């Protein structure tokens, strides 16, 4: 470790013994979770964006490939973008093979993430249920269940009686869209999204990587067609490889690097209710009426809303989407009709034409891009980082092969927009 903070920030493990030890000395011995070092002149790899995906990329570069001379540069604060704004749902019940492989890798990494990072990310495999409320949706989910069986993703189609048994508060005889069944993934669930970012940041810092917050990358410096570094609000920093992992601002960063992306950015909203007693211990997604809901450990109902239909970078979204979402959920869960909503917010999602992500080399040598996760990136955080790290270290990865940014030119879509039909 060549950071001057290196020795100070060698990570002390969290454990029950650590809690007992600190309890005995008035909690004076806890160290900061990660260092805030001054940037060096040069790194082997710079990752732009310290959200979940950027930090996970850095973590697996170090863990799987021994590349630890890495800086993760963040414009705002750690995990303050979409990582801290999503509804924390984790599932892998996708239709297309490349998606299922990537998302299932991700879901399986969540299973042991708390142990791997020595940080409690509160992964809760409580089960994810996607309601089928039209005949078309029933056929679609049956197809997905069969595809998942072939892909080795554990899902099954369940009947309305089983839906009611798992979620007693649901109204399966709704007036417009009665519940006809559901696609059920028992090992899907939720995790604490902030903890995922914090856990990765702490582990990266422990490997000697630099997490540099409050620093914007303002330009990408090139020699010929090869990246040699970046300009930041804290001066120029050199690098051999650059990873752009900035979600909603991918288009902005790509322009600074000198290429275009097939991406459009729009706000996606979420809201939470006041906390109530435990009433629903699974995640329910109702895609026909468009709303999805789970209950957090604090008791708040966490509700995912709609995406604005036009490009915007305002992290709030249009008000009428809240009404549409809440109306749909009240129809599905009549008991929440008197519930008060506490907070509403938006995050900028980066949408591709086929609603599948981009993990790819770019027209600029040494620059890699990880974006296009659209409305469903949180669930992919560890898998995305795993695959992106392999791509950046080796130049290719079996998981990212199909997710090239050049697939649009070739017409090789991974068409989850048809498969999911809606936010995913």
């Amino acid at each position: 470790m060549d950071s001057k903070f290196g020795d100070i920030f060698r990570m002390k493990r969290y454990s029950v013994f650590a809690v007992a030890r600190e309890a005995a000395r008035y909690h004076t011995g806890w160290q900061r979770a990660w260092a805030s070092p001054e940037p060096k002149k040069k790194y082997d790899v710079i990752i732009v964006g310290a959200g979940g995906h950027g930090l996970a990329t850095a973590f697996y570069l170090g863990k799987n490939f021994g590349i630890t001379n890495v800086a993760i540069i963040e414009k705002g604060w750690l995990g303050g973008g979409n990582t801290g704004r999503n509804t924390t749902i984790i599932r892998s019940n996708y239709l297309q093979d490349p998606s299922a492989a990537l998302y299932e890798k991700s879901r399986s990494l969540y299973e042991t993430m708390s142990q791997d990072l020595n940080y409690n990310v509160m992964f809760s495999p409580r089960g994810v249920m996607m309601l089928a409320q039209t005949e078309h949706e029933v056929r679609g989910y049956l197809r997905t269940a069969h595809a998942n069986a072939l892909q080795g993703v554990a899902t099954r189609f369940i009947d309305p009686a089983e839906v009611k048994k798992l979620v007693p508060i649901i109204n399966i005889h709704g007036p417009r869209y009665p519940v006809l069944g559901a696609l059920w993934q028992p090992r899907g669930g939720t995790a604490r999204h902030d903890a995922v970012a914090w856990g990765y940041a702490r582990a990266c810092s422990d490997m000697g990587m630099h997490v540099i917050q409050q620093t914007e990358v303002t330009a990408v410096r090139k020699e010929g067609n090869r990246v040699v570094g970046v300009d930041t609000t804290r001066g120029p920093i050199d690098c051999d490889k650059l990873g752009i992992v900035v979600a909603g601002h991918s288009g902005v960063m790509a322009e600074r690097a000198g290429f275009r992306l097939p991406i459009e950015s729009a706000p996606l909203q979420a809201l939470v209710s006041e906390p109530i007693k435990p009433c629903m211990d699974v995640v329910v997604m109702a895609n026909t009426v468009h709303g999805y809901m789970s209950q957090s450990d604090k008791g708040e109902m966490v509700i995912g809303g709609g995406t604005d239909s036009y490009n915007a970078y305002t992290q709030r979204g249009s008000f009428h989407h809240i009404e549409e979402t809440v109306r749909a959920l009240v129809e599905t869960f009549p008991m929440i009709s008197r519930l008060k909503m506490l907070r509403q917010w938006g995050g900028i999602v980066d949408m591709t034409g086929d609603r599948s992500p981009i993990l790819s080399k770019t027209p600029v040598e040494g620059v890699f891009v990880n974006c296009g996760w659209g409305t469903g990136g949180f669930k992919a955080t560890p898998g995305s980082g795993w695959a992106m790290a392999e791509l950046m270290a080796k130049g290719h990865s079996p998981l990212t092969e199909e997710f090239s940014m050049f697939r649009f030119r070739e017409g090789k879509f991974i068409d989850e927009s048809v498969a999911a039909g809606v936010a995913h």
Partner: protein
Amino acid sequence: MLTLHCPYCGVHADETELASGGEAHLKRFGPGASDEDFEGYLFMRENPKGVHFERWRHAYGCGKWFLAARCTNTLEVFGTYPAQSTEPPQHVRDAISAKRPGWTWREFS
């Protein structure tokens, strides 16, 4: 809530009355075009953080398509103009130049 002035029927319409139609002033490429041009036309978009030109339809009003210049960062609207325009008219350009000094213009044709 976003409100746009429909240049045809003169109504200041709420966004619930409108349908968004994506980026305006796209240059169309068809059979015989290069792969790169065709890909650009179908998939590549400006997606700017700032001034943006868009197609909108007054769906629950007069039903007509029109174009709008809008800031994607502040949702400020600089002006709307008829769909037949091949580039933003002078009054819209003036409004943008006045409010966003230094804004660099791209080619529209």
